[in-house]
């Protein structure tokens, strides 16, 4: 067997905190000083002597990760948000460079998530296939030979010469996916594929992944969905805080992951080292998704209300604080944003929050979500003054639609929300 991927002691260090400090003006004086010193700062930055180093935190998103993967194997990667899974995939697909270590990759790396990169709304479906194919590294002749197959797969045959800006989002996604799926790379990287698109689309993705694996290609599969990992991979690695904890047959790795507490369903816990120093005096502790019976869960039912609980500590009194949730789909479309002091009375009542331990809790009513996977981002700020803490991707959860309106028809339904509306059928003649 030949080795498809060989990863040796790679690490990736990120700078964080610089951007926030730059825009955290408190006083006009700061602004003036900043403006006057700007040219000097620019000159310093350009020759590499940044004076902002003081404010910068460095974190290792990935540290000391090594593994080999043989050709034709399917490897699962599990770990909670921020464990370094995406960073690892980004390094393997050469989007970003490792800070240390080496990787050798035999063949072309493709991904099923980069669908539609480089699509231009003004170009037709046909033109975008060529454009997107070239971006993904396909030769023109290769695209020519697969063109009909791509069009068939995408099911947009009759609109192929229409600008894609006239496409529905489903058509757009299908076409984009069709190109990515026909890239036929030697190594395929699938990041959270189950989270993208509707149920039908997900099935297609998984089907394609199965095909790819059967053809003897190498697949790396990242998912939060343990059952998909179990079904599709023989082996998995567990990442935690950028480090590889284990590599084992999938069942063993998943058991370890689920029992080690780091994957605790429906719950995200921030350790001291997870929180940037710049957040002080705000210190996030945990975020929980709870079902009707108060249990933290990974999957909630659309037909039941859901409670989102954010626990935090204030190490100094904070004036004008608002703590909020950003709810979005895995594709990054926002569903809603909400803050604990949205009600003016509550805002006045909690004008200044003293030092102490708090929970901000919101109940999301029943009959809200459609089927799918959603993420919640948290944010703590004082409006117009400063942002203390932000985690755009704090936790993810699944929505199960059992009991939701219209589920007696076994078909996927479009849309992000699935409310129970007061329908009325009146016979008027």
């Amino acid at each position, binding site marked *: 067997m030949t080795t498809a991927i060989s990863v040796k002691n790679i690490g990736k260090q*990120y700078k964080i905190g610089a951007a926030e400090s730059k825009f955290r003006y408190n006083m006009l004086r700061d602004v003036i000083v900043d403006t006057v010193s700007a040219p000097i700062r620019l000159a310093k930055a350009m020759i590499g002597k940044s004076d902002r180093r003081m404010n910068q935190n460095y974190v290792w998103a990935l540290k000391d990760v090594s593994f080999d993967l043989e050709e034709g194997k399917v490897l699962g990667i599990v770990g909670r948000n921020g464990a370094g899974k995406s960073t690892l995939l980004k390094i393997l*697909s050469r*989007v970003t460079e490792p800070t240390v270590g080496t*990787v050798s990759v*035999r*063949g072309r*790396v493709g991904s099923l998530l980069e669908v539609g*990169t480089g699509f231009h709304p003004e170009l037709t479906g046909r033109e975008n296939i060529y454009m997107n194919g070239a*971006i993904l590294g396909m030769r023109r002749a290769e695209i020519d030979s697969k063109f009909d197959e791509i069009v068939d797969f995408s099911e947009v045959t009759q609109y192929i010469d229409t600008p894609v800006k006239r496409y529905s989002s489903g058509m757009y996604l299908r076409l984009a996916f069709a190109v990515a799926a026909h890239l036929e790379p030697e190594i395929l990287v699938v990041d959270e594929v189950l989270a993208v698109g509707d149920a039908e689309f997900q099935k297609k993705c998984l089907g394609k992944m199965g095909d790819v694996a059967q053809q003897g*290609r190498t697949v790396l599969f990242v998912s939060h969905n343990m059952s998909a990992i179990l079904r599709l991979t023989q082996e998995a690695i567990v990442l935690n805080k950028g480090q590889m904890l284990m590599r084992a047959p999938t069942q063993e790795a998943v058991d370890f992951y689920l029992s080690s507490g780091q994957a605790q369903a429906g719950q995200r816990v921030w350790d001291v080292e997870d929180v940037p120093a710049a957040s002080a005096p705000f210190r996030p502790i945990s975020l929980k998704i709870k079902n009707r019976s108060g249990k933290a869960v990974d999957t909630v039912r659309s037909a039941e209300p859901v409670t989102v609980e954010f626990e935090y500590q204030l190490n100094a009194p904070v004036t004008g604080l608002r703590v909020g949730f950003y709810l979005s789909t895995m594709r990054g479309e926002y569903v809603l944003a909400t803050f604990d002091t949205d009600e003016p009375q509550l805002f006045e009542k909690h004008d200044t929050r003293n030092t102490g331990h708090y929970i901000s809790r919101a109940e999301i009513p029943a009959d809200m979500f459609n089927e799918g996977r959603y993420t919640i981002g948290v944010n703590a700020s004082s409006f117009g003054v400063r942002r203390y803490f932000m985690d755009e991707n704090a936790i993810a959860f699944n929505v199960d639609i059992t009991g939701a309106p219209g589920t007696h028809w076994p078909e996927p339904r479009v849309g992000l929300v699935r409310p129970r509306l007061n329908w009325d059928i009146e016979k008027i003649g």
Partner: protein
Amino acid sequence: MTQLTKHEPHTIYIKPSKGLAALNLRDLWVYRELIFFMVWRDVKVKYKQTLLGMAWAVIQPVMTMLVFTFLFDKVAKLPTEGIPYQVFSFTALLPWGLFVVALNQGSRSLVAHNNMVTKIYFPRLILPISSVFSGLVDFAIAFVILVILMFYYQVTPAWNLLWTLPLFLLLAIVTALGVALWLSAINVQYRDVNQALPFLTQFWLFATPVAYSASVIPAKWQVLYFLNPMAGVVNGFRWSLLGVGSGPDITLWVSTGISILIFVSGLFYFRSMEKTFADTI
């Protein structure tokens, strides 16, 4: 199902690049078709949903030329070394137009395509390169206008343009690309570039003999003046096409030297910053 692969896969080594990283021109060659597609897309999309379409490629330089003619010929009466001012300025507007595209599109190319940069691998050099190349399409259209203008005003082209013009065009591309490399890479981290561009474009236009003749610059300032590489490019175009000016002398070498310096340093700066593009953009 199509067969697995037509070629034996080659192994890619990924490791942190150090110092002045190798330019990795091999990858650029592998992805050469992407340059073509990017240029093709830019051209295709540029005039979509416009009433006048490709006519804009004609209207823009012609209008500029007419404004210049009114201001600098009719009002200011600047010397043009015996060439009708229309032809004199239009000759300069050719390379200048190419440069402006590079300056504006090129500098914004990485930031404008940040979704590509953060999601997939491809040689990042392709972005500034293809924006400069897409300027060549407008250049070709404007060139046809110039030929028509020269016929109309009965200006005889210089005999040596067949081999000198391609060289000066190459110099224009090298200069434009060099500046685009620097600015696009800086723009990833400091969006100040976006703010500075309108001013920079304007300033550079005044510092380049587009609307006027380089001969109006006093002799003792000539060498200093030609530190602006575009001055050499524009002067070269005039000499090559119209046979005016001094031809290759010390000023041209100064401009060419600076141009190559900007280009080569730009390449290395771009390469050294490339590894952080996806993280900082």
